């Protein structure tokens, strides 16, 4: 992590917020544009889950993290609170790591 990235990230993130709230204001975008923007979190966050669970650098690996995330997904599916999802996922990962 570098301070350069932190500064650029803060500036970029604020720029989006500022642009919407202050510069563009109460105008509407074409519906198709809004639909696509609304789908960014689903597309990008699911990619982040895949990256953090199944990869190491440029390699695809299957290790203790996959077991932890599988259990976390079941917890989320059963509507468990956030903290339970994270703790269960971490605990499962730790246990599998210990026994393997």
């Amino acid at each position, binding site marked *: *992590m*570098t301070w*350069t*990235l*932190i500064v650029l*990230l*803060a*500036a*970029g*993130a*604020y720029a*989006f*917020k*500022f*642009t*919407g*709230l*202050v510069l*563009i*204001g*109460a*105008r509407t975008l074409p519906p198709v544009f*809004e*639909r*696509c*923007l*609304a*789908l*960014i979190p*689903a*597309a*990008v*966050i*699911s*990619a982040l889950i895949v*990256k*953090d*669970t*199944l*990869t*190491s*650098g*440029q*390699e*695809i690996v299957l290790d203790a*993290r996959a077991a*932890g*995330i599988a259990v*976390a997904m079941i917890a989320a*599916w059963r509507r468990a*609170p*956030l903290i339970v*999802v*994270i703790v269960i*996922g*971490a605990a*499962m*990962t*730790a246990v599998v*790591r210990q026994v393997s």
Partner: protein
Amino acid sequence: MTVSGPQSSQPNPGRSPDRPPHWWREESLRPMIVACLTLSAAVGVFGVSFGVGSVAAGASVLQTCVISLVVFTGASQFSAVSVIGAGGSIGSALGGALLLAARNGVYGMAMSRRLDGGLGRRILAAQLTIDETTAMAVAQPTRREQQIAFWLTGGALYACWNLGTLIGALAGSAIDPETYGLDVAFPAGFIAMIWPLLSRVEARLAAIVGAAVCLLAVPFTPVGVPILLSVIGVLVGLRPPRTGGESPVEIRS
């Protein structure tokens, strides 16, 4: 550009002249106030998760806390730290994080017509314009309640998010995160973040495309680039939705 802690953790909706001074004593507003504070406390848990994951990914405690203070948009922070921690370049870390930050611009447009106040107050409001503050505000029936919900959630959430980050960063640097499986704090947090979105068919399709593109791209592209490519998943939105009544704002738990 950035917002200092004490200033924004103490929103003051009572300052506006058209509001009675003791809005928090009003019985009718109590359920909304409780909802705003509960949501903020829950997001504090995400903050702990960010703190733990960020130091596990190699950031210092100070860097981790500064990120939460100045960036203040959860998914982007998680994304940037995750990509850098895996060895990605600054460019790819920034690109992925800014893709996730773009929706705050849309929230800003939604909030623009609901917030009173001049430029100074809007500059501060912009920093607080994220998923949760927008969702809480647009859910309120009147303009006055929308503003109270926005500022109350914004202030409480800013405080909880940063306190959570500090606690997580200190805890994460005191123990070995891998021993306790805490390297999955990020993906498990992402699971919790994405789950409420997946009730919509389009979001499920976008998620599947995003995940598949990422997995296919990992062996062939530098670290972080698959995250950028996953944005292809949003093309699902080019098709008109099958059912009406689509909400412009996603509420995440």
